[in-house]
């Protein structure tokens, strides 16, 4: 038996499976990141609802807060385990990255560990404490969840920021890491825009997905106070977050233009270094050509450097094998920006209607759009991470370590990858199935706890 197993996974180190390892990591992140959105945004939404109940005494708000907190706990639990897998994968897939650089960026993860602890502790107290703690103590027990969610996401993103903008150490002539400054590594230049961008994205994804549930019920004619409140609260949040995200996106793009010009060139599909570069809106990039986009003269220079004649570095500035896969980066960037713009427009429709008519829009198209907006926001989120992460390639530590130098030599990667695909596909199907059933239940069936 063991001999057969050995034959399958191989003994010793022979070749590496870079592409499979990258896809495996991408799959695991793709499953985890939507859950992070709920970790960031859902506690604040639940507490807001509970606060409404405490202020007004209206049981509708309480029922919603309780129902949402139940979903919050399930999604947190799944996030706990998918997050654990990521910790394992960092070592299992990229052992040489961890070995060489762990001492530089690891400090942020140590802090994240504590945030995660607090989140797990207080989410349990909050969800299991319904009807058992005094209303005030219960509301208070929710606050650390919100704070730990923000802190945890910040520390994890600090590591991603560091991979894109490695600082906080020196290199000896032999290439050894020395004079490590963990705090400086934590507060790298890419931390802040990535954190704020992701934080708003968390609210957009969670907000639109939750609103979509009630918009769907609305279209089915369920328009009682319960569904109305469940629709308006998340919509109000996303209507404010969506336009803010556009401003933050501009900040992010300018930082990338400055620190990672090759990534920016890939995002825009800009082949040659150009002064007064045009921005191509829309279109599809295939094999070095953009088809079907609209060119706006000088706009790229204006957006990236706030100067219409600024020089924007093209892909030709670096060797071909130092460029990321341009089509992935460029097309994903277009998808993210396009969807972001649509979401902002949808938020504006909601605000306009509230302001002018004091009510929700009457057109069924509004509700259909809100139902579609959840999956679209999720798509934009994933597309955004593809821009950041695929745009970083071929580097795992920007311009210091190539991804191919970091990958494990283990032979079992394809088997591991296939296993994970099956496990995650089953998990996603199961979670969606059960959440759908939960969403179909109305106010009456809100029970105590999980």
């Amino acid at each position, binding site marked *: 038996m063991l001999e057969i197993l050995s034959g399958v996974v191989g003994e010793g180190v022979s070749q590496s499976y870079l592409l499979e390892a990258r896809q495996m990591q991408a799959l695991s992140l793709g499953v985890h990141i939507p859950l992070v959105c709920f970790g960031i945004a859902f506690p604040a939404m639940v507490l807001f609802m509970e606060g409404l109940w405490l202020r007004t005494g209206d049981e509708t708000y309480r029922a919603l807060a309780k129902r949402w907190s139940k979903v919050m706990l399930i999604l947190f*639990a799944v996030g*706990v385990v*998918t997050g*654990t897998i990521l910790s394992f994968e960092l070592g299992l897939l990229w052992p040489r990255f961890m070995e*060489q*650089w762990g001492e530089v960026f*690891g400090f942020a993860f140590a802090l994240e560990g504590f945030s995660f602890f607090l989140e797990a502790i207080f989410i349990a107290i909050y969800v299991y404490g319904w009807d058992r*703690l005094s209303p005030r103590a219960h509301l208070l027990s929710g606050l650390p969840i919100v704070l730990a969610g923000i802190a945890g996401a910040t520390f994890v993103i600090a590591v991603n920021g560091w991979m894109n903008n490695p600082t906080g150490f020196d290199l000896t002539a032999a290439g050894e890491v020395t004079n490590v400054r963990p705090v400086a590594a934590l507060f790298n230049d890419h931390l802040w825009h990535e954190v704020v961008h992701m934080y708003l994205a968390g609210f957009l994804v969670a907000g639109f997905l939750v609103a979509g549930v009630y918009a769907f019920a609305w279209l089915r004619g369920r328009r009682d106070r319960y569904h109305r409140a469940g629709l308006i609260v998340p919509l109000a949040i996303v209507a404010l977050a969506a336009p803010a995200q556009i401003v933050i996106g501009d900040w992010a793009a300018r930082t990338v233009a400055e620190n990672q010009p090759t990534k920016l060139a890939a995002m825009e599909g800009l082949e040659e270094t150009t002064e007064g570069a045009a921005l191509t809106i829309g279109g599809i990039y295939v094999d070095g050509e953009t088809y079907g986009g609209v060119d706006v003269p000088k706009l790229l220079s204006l957006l990236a450097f706030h100067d219409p004649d600024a020089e924007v570095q093209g892909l030709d500035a670096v060797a071909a094998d130092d460029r990321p896969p341009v089509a992935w980066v460029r097309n994903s960037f277009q998808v993210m920006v396009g969807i972001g713009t649509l979401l902002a427009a949808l938020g504006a429709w909601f605000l306009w209607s509230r302001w002018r008519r004091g009510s929700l829009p009457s057109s069924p198209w509004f509700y259909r759009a809100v139902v579609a907006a959840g999956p679209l926001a999720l798509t934009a989120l994933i597309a955004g991470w593809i821009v950041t992460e695929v745009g970083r390639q071929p580097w795992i530590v920007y311009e210091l370590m190539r991804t191919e130098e970091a990958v494990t030599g283990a032979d079992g990667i394809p088997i591991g990858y296939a296993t994970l695909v099956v496990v995650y596909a089953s998990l996603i199907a199961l979670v969606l199935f059960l959440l759908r059933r939960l969403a179909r239940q109305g106010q009456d069936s809100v029970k105590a706890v999980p």
Partner: protein
Amino acid sequence: MLPELTVAVLGIGLTAYAVLGGADFGAGFWDLTAGGAKRGARVRGMVKRSMGPVWEANHVWLIFVLVILWTCFPHAFGPLMETLYVPLFLAAVGIILRGAAFALRGEAATIAEARALGATFALSSVLVPFFLGATVGAVASGQVTLDQTAGAISSWTNATSIFSGVLAVATGAYIAAVFLAADSARSGFDDLAEAFRRRALGAAAVAGALAIGGLAVVSSDAPELYDGLTSGAGLAMVSLSALAGLVTVALIWKRSFGPARLGAAVAVGSILAGLALAVQPDFFPGQLTFAAAAAGDATLAATLISVAIGLLILLPSLALLFRLFLRGRLDQPLEPIGTSRSEAES
């Protein structure tokens, strides 16, 4: 000095995970072995009621251990993951299945759904501690080498590793039975307290026998580890573990479940401390010392300071959670699992 201090922090984290996380895995073991749907319904219900509020916080100790490991001992983390990737990956998959099945089981509407999720939860609760235990055994018995010549399978299928895996399952079951007996007694479920008391005594006998038999296995499979465990500080810890185990059995016998919780924790924690003391000052016996595995002093100092500050927030929070839990403030009604509601109530 700093590397040794950091190893101690790592050891505390690992012990907390072995005790608290181990108890959650062990609870899954009792779920798995609870018998038919009708007979096991109350045991399964109690497992769920007892684990629900605390398992996520208990699980975070594993994250804590991983993070300290790669931040403070990066030169050990790389070879460790590259050598023992098979058991570690299998443990990771088991962790997904177990956590997700446990969290989602509460939403199961039909008996068939609850059974499928329950079986997934229970089975993976046995596999995860086995693979993690085997990993610890492989490290302690010197299977990890820096030149990456160790086999992907042979590195963790030596007798010591397999024995460690089995011991991890058994000790988890033992701690879980003690904790579940204490929770049942606290909640006034006398039948369940008795049921778990019997299980705790049985598991204590099995774990004790395994530990003694295991020493024989280790003496032939990993003589250097055996020497470490039977002399000096290693021997002191092994003796402490045996003593704590015996005291705990006496406490369980007398139905003094509260103090038994502590005794069981000491019995398990001192085994891990004994392993660490047996191989010190090496991280990988004969291959890599603590000092050589460690990150630079700046990183160790920053991590230790942040751990100290973090504990100032974490410990009161954990104390609050466990106090609320132990006083029954987070208790839910006991819902037997595996039978339909009406059946259970009749």
